[in-house]
């Protein structure tokens, strides 16, 4: 049993460490040394991006399936997530700051890689102009779901490895 006073001291210490680390962090997005922020670890950051890309894709595929009988509808898909670019460190979309209430808000650009494009070469098109192939879309959706499971499992494993190193298990 750890004495409560010691716990309090430890928590305080951790707080000081994190806050000072945040203060020294580079504003221009260089490597931060905040040990408590998991998204600052490249691997966790990549997994987070992958998860958000997968859920965005699931949304697009749902749209395709829902519109499988809409005349003139062309299926959409996201561009594949490029791990090479991710490793280089992509910059998150930046929203303009409003310094005056008279300023227009403008729009925030979408997160990189989550913009959907119409498929250029659909497998088949019906007389009504609909180009959704149910089998293809379902296969993609299945793939997305299993990739999501894989990524969450990886996330879990990495997290438990860190916990193991911390000795909390």
């Amino acid at each position, binding site marked *: 049993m750890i004495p409560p006073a010691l716990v309090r001291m430890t928590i305080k210490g951790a707080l000081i460490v994190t806050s000072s680390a945040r203060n020294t962090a580079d504003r221009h997005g260089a490597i931060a040394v905040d040990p408590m922020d998991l998204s600052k670890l490249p691997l966790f950051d990549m997994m987070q991006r992958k*998860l*958000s890309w*997968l*859920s*965005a894709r*699931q*949304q697009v*595929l*749902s*749209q395709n*399936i*829902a*519109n*499988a*009988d*809409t*005349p003139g*509808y062309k299926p959409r898909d996201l561009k594949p997530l490029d791990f090479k670019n991710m490793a280089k460190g992509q910059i998150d979309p930046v929203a303009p700051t409003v310094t005056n209430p008279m300023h227009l808000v403008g729009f925030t650009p979408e997160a990189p890689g989550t913009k959907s494009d119409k498929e250029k070469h659909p497998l088949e098109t019906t007389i009504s102009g609909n180009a959704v192939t*149910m089998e293809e*879309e*379902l296969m993609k*959706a*299945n793939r*997305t*779901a299993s990739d*999501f*499971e894989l990524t*969450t*499992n990886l*996330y*879990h494993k990495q*997290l438990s490895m860190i916990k193991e190193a911390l000795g909390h298990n």
Partner: protein
Amino acid sequence: MDLTKAMEISASGMYAQGQRVRVIAENMANADSTAQSAGGAPYERKLITFKSLVDRAQGIETVAVKSITRDTATPFGKKYEPSSPAADKEGYVQTANVNPLIEMTDMHEAQRSYEANLNLITMSKTMIQHAIDLLR
């Protein structure tokens, strides 16, 4: 969150297919509805069309019923039944322009689309569950 939006889109697809099945059921139920009087028109087959609906607030594209119209292109059928009150001078009664074979095929297509949407909802739900399981 994208996954809840995905579920919303699939739900709109299920609703649209449900409407389609309703129209098909109307057609099938009235497949034998003949004219009421001589020279009167029998039941006219109904058609349903879909459109994609852009929800700008959420940035999603759902599906909705565009219109339910009458099928004026398919001609009515004729049945020889001189004893019927709706029979014309030659003894023929006009029958509805419903072809059960077409309706059944349409129904199967609607069912298939409904199942696909349902599968996608289940898939999205499992994905959300996996994300929640990270807390464990």
